[in-house]
């Protein structure tokens, strides 16, 4: 039976069930207008749908009944008991026909002329005084249905009795499904979770007792509990095909829009997963199919040239594997271009050539999941740029899933998504800190590192801030004891040794320092009591197998609480509130404090510093007037802040702040790196002097804030200038009202090799246009006084010399709707504040035709 018909039957049966009761009530309350309207609507709906499905017999009966009901509703005819009986008869007939339809998929044959004639007569105002004469008609079609022998119908004593066997027929053939409120299923799930916990506790108890009498029944209980858990899980399951329904249409539209021939193949549509998870993967899935159609598949000409069929294939495949569902989205297109990715990775400074050389193809491909990474040279309206696979990855990881890909150049790419079947039960790592145990959801954990006094990795300190050098990157550490204010005096189990749980939140990696690590356990996530909800460090609590209650740590909350979250994309609420906090007033900024020369300590926003290095004095070389160091395969200029130009002597290390990326790095030599602190960056410009933006009170001390742009400028004259004289630096106009963000963006963009002009709002930007100033690209904030980003983009696109310029939106809000709105308004790209890498990548892409040789 086709789905449409099945839906119709389910719906009609529900309508018919309520109709009997409603009609009987109407008989008692003939003046009940709303009830009458409801009855009319139900019959009308049935009639309408029948017409649509081509069920002519059903339609004609419903139509005749509807006529009478219509006249009642309009008040033209009075509602009489005889009339009600007649309608009830019509309803019974409809039930018979529906029952036949259910059994065979066809409308049963039968003659409704007499019934229709009566209904028509009633509509004409000629109602029989006594309903009895209609009795023989009802059983006739019913028998036509059950025995196909109307003549042999047993005489029915009165019409209502005739309806009863019909009702049985309806009951017997009803589809084997019932609708259950989602709440009921959720409650069941909760109860089963409790049961699983209790079972686990019992098993734990039983393990400590040999030959206990209850061990056999306990095994049985355990088995039944597992089965019950599976059963209840099944009630929440929906076929993944529900999330695929819109894809064939999407692919058809895409193939027209892109001028490609595409077929969509779907396998495993019946694979089931939790409805909550299903909702959450719909959007990423759509994005990936778009991606395959747009970037993956070639045009028909290219395909022919490559010796492939002109029609490209996109394949969706879903299947179960362990406690997960695996979803594959593949295409037989061009595959990923490893060389292009490599070039781009290097250009963006995501890694070094040496590191790239050690990576295999698959590892290199995975760079496409980095924020802001997109290799498509051409911008299309379909996939766009900027928001890409990183968003998909973040969304899938948020529900505890993982994304990977397989690609062969020329043969196509396949994305593999692995998601848990359900979110209610998760795998978690049990850790201990300060004598207490906690659970960390496994999906956020990348690796475990043992740190201690031995040969292994060590925790290092920049004053109070702990860091771990892990494979050449500095991992900020968050000691769990400290952030949870746990007692510092309980010594860790193994003195001097602890563990770092390397965790990823969005693009941010950090390590959580714990005393001990136990094993992983499947835990049932329970929300914490309302009086504890304000503690953002916890996402819930749970009961372990031994019966103890422990808290579940929320890596997101920890990152936010420690200031690591400030750059985390994807948390729109957090970003939005941050953005508005910037607009309104004080905001904590992580500042790196250092000492350089005489006078007050100096500080620079930590986000601007790419790396901190301690360079051995003998590595520093003199090149002409300036100092340089061989750094990551190229020469990095070093600038002294304190005004002296000599490297330290006597073998002491030189602390250096490294700015910029890749081969455009600049090192600032300082005397000593002091600390990293959070402070409100409230710059008093009174203390302004070259190289410093002004001063600010940090830790109760007046501190000079470094003007990063100034130092980069110095380096440019000394260094970049020589190398880049032959190239024209692309000009970027930055429209941004917040001085704070300007301070962050301008140095980064300048360091990226652009010439930057800034204005504070859209109106000032347009004034530049009217003054015939020309730029290569415009980067604009969205929320600004006077004229906001949307206003600016539409003014620019309207005409004038800037009409065709690429424009990049920079916004605190980066939800898909915002991105879509931005693109709709005419922005070429849309990037979250403050995602430096994405911005640089985007600038580079916007300018590619002009800059690339």
């Amino acid at each position: 039976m086709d789905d449409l018909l099945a839906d119709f039957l389910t719906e009609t049966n529900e309508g018919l069930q309520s109709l009997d009761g409603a009609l009987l009530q109407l008989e008692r309350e003939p003046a009940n207008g709303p009830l009458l309207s409801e009855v009319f609507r139900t019959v009308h709906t049935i009639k309408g749908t029948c017409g649509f499905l081509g069920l002519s017999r059903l339609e004609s009966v419903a139509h005749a009944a509807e006529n009478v009901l219509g006249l009642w509703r309009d008040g033209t005819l009075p509602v009489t008991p005889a009339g009600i009986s007649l309608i009830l008869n019509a309803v019974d007939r409809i039930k018979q026909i529906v029952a036949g339809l259910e059994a065979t998929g066809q409308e049963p044959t039968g003659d409704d002329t007499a019934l229709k004639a009566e209904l028509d007569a009633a509509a004409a105002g000629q109602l029989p005084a006594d309903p009895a004469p209609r009795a023989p008609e009802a059983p006739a079609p019913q028998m036509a249905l059950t025995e196909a022998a109307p003549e042999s119908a047993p005489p029915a004593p009165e019409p209502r009795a005739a309806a009863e066997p019909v009702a049985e027929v309806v009951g017997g053939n009803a589809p084997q499904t019932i609708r259950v409120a989602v709440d009921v299923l959720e409650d069941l799930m909760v109860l089963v979770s409790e049961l699983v916990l209790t079972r686990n506790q019992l098993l734990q108890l039983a393990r400590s007792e040999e030959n206990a009498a209850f061990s056999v029944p306990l095994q049985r209980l355990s088995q039944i509990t597992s089965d019950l858990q599976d059963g209840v899980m099944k009630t929440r399951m929906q076929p993944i095909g529900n999330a695929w329904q819109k894809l064939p249409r999407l692919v058809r539209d895409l193939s027209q829009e892109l001028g490609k021939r595409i077929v969509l193949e779907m396998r495993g549509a019946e694979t089931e997963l939790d409805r909550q998870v299903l909702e959450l993967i719909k959007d990423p899935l759509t994005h990936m199919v778009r991606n395959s159609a747009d970037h993956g598949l070639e045009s028909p000409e290219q395909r022919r040239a490559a010796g492939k069929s002109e029609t490209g294939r996109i394949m969706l495949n879903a299947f179960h594997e362990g406690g997960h569902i695996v979803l594959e989205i593949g295409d037989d297109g061009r595959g990923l271009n490893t060389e292009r990715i490599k070039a781009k990775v290097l250009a963006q400074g995501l890694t070094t050539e040496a590191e790239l050389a050690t990576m295999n193809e698959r590892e290199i491909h995975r760079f496409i999941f980095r924020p802001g990474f997109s290799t498509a040279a051409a911008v299309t309206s379909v996939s766009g740029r900027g928001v890409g696979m990183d968003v998909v990855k973040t969304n899938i990881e948020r529900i505890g899933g993982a994304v990977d890909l397989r690609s062969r150049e020329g043969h196509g790419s396949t994305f593999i998504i692995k998601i848990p079947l359900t979110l209610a039960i998760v795998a978690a790592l049990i850790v201990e800190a300060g004598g207490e145990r906690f659970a960390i959801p496994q999906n956020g954990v990348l690796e475990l590192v043992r740190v201690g006094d031995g040969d292994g990795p060590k925790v290092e300190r920049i004053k109070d801030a702990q860091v771990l050098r892990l494979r050449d990157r500095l991992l900020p550490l968050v000691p769990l004891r400290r952030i949870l204010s746990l007692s510092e005096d309980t010594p860790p189990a193994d003195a001097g040794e602890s563990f770092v749980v390397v965790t990823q939140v969005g693009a941010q990696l950090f390590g959580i320092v714990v005393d001990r690590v136990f094993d992983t356990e499947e835990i049932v996530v329970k929300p914490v009591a309302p009086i504890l909800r304000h503690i953002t460090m916890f996402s819930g609590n749970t009961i372990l197998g031994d019966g103890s209650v422990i808290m579940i740590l929320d890596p997101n909350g920890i990152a936010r609480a420690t200031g690591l979250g400030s750059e985390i994309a994807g948390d729109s609420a957090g970003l939005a509130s941050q953005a508005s906090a910037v607009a309104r007033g004080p905001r904590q900024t992580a500042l790196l404090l250092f000492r350089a020369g005489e006078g007050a300590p100096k500080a620079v926003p930590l986000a601007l510093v790419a790396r901190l290095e301690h360079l051995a004095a003998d590595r520093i070389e003199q090149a002409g007037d300036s100092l340089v160091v061989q750094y990551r395969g190229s020469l990095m200029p070093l600038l002294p802040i304190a005004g002296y130009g000599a490297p330290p002597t006597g073998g002491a290390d030189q602390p250096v702040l490294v700015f910029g990326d890749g081969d455009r790095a600049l090192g600032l030599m300082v005397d000593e790196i002091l600390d990293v602190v959070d402070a409100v960056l409230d710059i008093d410009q009174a203390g302004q002097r070259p190289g410093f933006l002004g001063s600010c009170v940090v830790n109760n001390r007046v501190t000079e804030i470094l003007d990063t742009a100034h130092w980069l400028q110095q380096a440019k004259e000394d260094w970049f200038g020589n190398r880049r004289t032959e190239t024209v630096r692309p000009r970027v106009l930055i429209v941004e009202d917040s001085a704070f963000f300007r301070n962050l963006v301008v140095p980064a963009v300048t360091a990226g090799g652009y010439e930057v002009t800034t204005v504070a709002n859209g109106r000032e930007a347009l004034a530049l246009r009217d003054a015939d100033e020309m730029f290569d690209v415009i980067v604009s904030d969205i929320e600004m006084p006077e004229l906001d980003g949307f206003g600016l983009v539409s003014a620019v696109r309207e005409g004038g010399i800037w009409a065709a310029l690429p424009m990049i939106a920079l916004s605190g809000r980066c939800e898909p709707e915002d991105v879509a709105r931005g693109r709709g308004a005419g922005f070429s790209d849309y990037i979250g504040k403050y995602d430096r890498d994405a911005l640089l990548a985007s600038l580079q892409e916007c300018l590619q035709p002009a800059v690339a040789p």
Partner: protein
Amino acid sequence: MQQPQTLNTGGPPSRAALGADAAHMVLTLTVAGQQCGVPVLSVRDVLGVQVITPIPLAPREVAGSLNLRGRIVTAVDLRARLGLPAREAGKGAMSVVVEVGGELYSLLADEVGEVLSLSSEDRAANPPTLDNLWRDVSLGVHRQGGSLLVIFDVDKLLALSA
């Protein structure tokens, strides 16, 4: 693991079973020597000394959480809640489990007494000199034999100012 020692095994007392008087019945507790009472209709369970897991960063009054037959119960120490000195080390507390807004909470008291039926004639309003902290959570004071019984409003006890 320690099994909950349940004194009141009958589950939640229903209004019907206890009759109309249930509304006037209180369970008496002792907190730092002071006799108090909570309306019996809000009490779900009375437990002996339990293993309580402390919750980091929780409000001062929250002693931690405990496991009651697979449900997580948040324990609020009445001494801390009422501004009384902390219990001596080594002395366990009794748990009076109450349900508020669908969540279970345990009120930690030094001792749990009996269920009393109170007549409204014995009830007096809060004395104006009563400590503010107490006045906020008290429904009134009852003369009970030779002593005074402060009746708590459970909802207010659990409205922590955190």
